[in-house]
């Protein structure tokens, strides 16, 4: 029997949609010219890049295509936003960064590096559901604050942050505001004007585009130091021969995502909710991590008490189900997810977490299969768990 493959890790990466792949194809072989060259093969590359820029500017609600800069990843866009802003602000004596405790490593590791370099970093806490309080942002702002960076939607627990409210505050105080919208773009509406952000990062492979392409929105008039120096590409702000095919793919993918967003979000929200409700009703000792409302439609994050996440992942994989976990063991570090810790989970519960992120390829029947498998696997792992043994014994004791 062919084992089914049920991909429930769309927040990690997505496949390239066939339409996107078709759009990219000509730029590998036929239209291969250097987009910065003068002659016609190159000009078609240039034209494709500029059309992609225009499309992405439109998708993100930017005032002008010229506010979009292509990068080699979402991580690069995040690095550029933060380092570029604080290096540019350094001469004005500004050395303070405000961010949250639940940012992606692309922001966290950048801030840690900058701290070592002498910058000050404030990590705002989040509440039990995973939300930043805009009031906390306001309180944290200092005269020397160079930038505030808060993600739009969290990659682990899907919490959608009050970006607009934060944008009003940063604007009031004249502080630069960066938003990591890597998880949001393509799943929920992202409008830089409405949000009031100055800088915003996206990454193509999160919305059915290719890996290795990102973009940074830089509001007109905002000055960043360059991160990657060299040739005059991207109007002298990001050097390196343009990844024409990748850029075309990103624009096509975002266009498609936005055209189908309501339908897509409706569908995956329904699957997600159904999975959540079935699991919570059929499996005991499960905790929902993250919020119920204001959550990415495809994101589900659960902790299964007494068991460890990596084991769970491996057993699910054996059943053909691809998921992820905030367990330390799955990342190679010793501590479990900083996001789960930030919303107040104990280490033990955090280690037992499972992230299921639904997407285009999922169906109703996937949900049924998932829940059946989970029920069986969780039970099996619990019989192997010394923690569950202790729990059962303690219960027996109490019942006596």
């Amino acid at each position, binding site marked *: 029997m062919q084992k089914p493959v049920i991909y429930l890790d769309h927040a990690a990466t997505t496949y390239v949609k066939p339409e996107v792949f078709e759009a990219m194809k000509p730029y590998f072989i036929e239209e291969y010219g250097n987009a910065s060259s003068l002659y016609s093969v190159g000009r078609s590359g240039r034209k494709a890049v500029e059309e992609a820029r225009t499309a992405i500017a439109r998708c993100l609600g930017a005032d002008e295509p010229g506010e979009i800069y292509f990068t080699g990843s979402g991580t690069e866009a995040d690095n550029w936003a933060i380092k570029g802003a604080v290096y540019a602000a350094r001469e004005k004596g500004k050395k303070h960064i405000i961010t949250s405790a639940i940012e992606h490593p692309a922001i966290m590791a950048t801030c840690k590096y900058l701290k070592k370099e002498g910058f000050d970093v404030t990590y705002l806490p989040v509440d039990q559901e995973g939300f930043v309080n805009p009031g906390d942002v306001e309180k944290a702002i200092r005269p020397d604050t160079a930038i505030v960076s808060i993600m739009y939607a969290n990659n682990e627990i899907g919490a959608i942050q009050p970006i607009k409210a934060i944008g009003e505050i940063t604007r009031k105080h004249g502080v630069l505001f960066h938003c990591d919208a890597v998880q949001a773009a393509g799943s929920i509406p992202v409008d830089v004007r409405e949000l009031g952000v100055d800088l915003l990062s996206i990454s193509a492979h999160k919305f059915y585009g290719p890996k290795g392409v990102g973009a940074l929105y830089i509001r007109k008039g905002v000055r960043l130091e360059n991160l990657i120096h060299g040739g005059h590409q991207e109007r002298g702000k990001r050097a390196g021969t343009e990844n024409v095919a990748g850029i075309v793919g990103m624009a096509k993918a975002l266009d498609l995502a936005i055209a189908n967003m309501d339908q897509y979000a409706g569908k995956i929200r329904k699957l997600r909710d159904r999975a959540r409700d079935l699991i919570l009703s059929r499996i005991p000792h499960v905790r929902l991590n993250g919020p119920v409302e204001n959550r990415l439609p495809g994101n589900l994050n659960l902790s299964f008490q007494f068991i*460890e996440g990596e084991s769970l992942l491996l057993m699910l994989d054996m059943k053909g189900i691809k998921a992820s976990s905030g367990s330390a063991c799955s990342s190679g570090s*010793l501590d479990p997810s900083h996001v789960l810790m930030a919303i107040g989970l104990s280490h*033990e519960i955090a280690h037992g977490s499972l992230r299921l992120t639904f997407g285009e390829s999922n169906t109703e029947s996937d949900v049924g299969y998932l829940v059946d498998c989970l029920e069986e696997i969780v039970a099996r792992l619990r019989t192997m768990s*010394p923690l569950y043994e202790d729990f059962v014994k303690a219960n027996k004791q109490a019942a006596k």
Partner: protein
Amino acid sequence: MYSEKVMDHFMNPRNVGEIEDADGVGQVGNAKCGDIMKMYLKIEDGIIVDAKFKTFGCGAAVATSSMATELIKGKTIKEAEMVTNKVVMEALDGLPPAKVHCSVLAEEAIAAALQDYRARHGLDSDSEYAGCPGCCGGCGRLEQQNRNGGE
């Protein structure tokens, strides 16, 4: 990332369970780090006639527990003490670097169970088992030291 042997011992772990009348029980690791191993031993005439485990932990933790119990079954205590983390790892065709600590945990779990056996039976405890590379606390000795004044 895991070898076939690891996956086999993870998916079909040998010796899962408890031994109700175990002669030695050892538990190492903690939930904070994401790994707990509990080892039960049945020992007759200095020979480990049965071994079982329960493990909360990753694939490597389960597989090393399984392999460790397999390796010590039928062995004398002294022989069991030679089942170091390296031996367990080799028997599993290796572990990824980030998972080596699981094999150390397995070694420590055996040591802890044997220590418990000795303590229960009033046997001479030199407190050092062959594979111990220094005191990691896995065997409970560090804790004991601390209770004794921490010197």
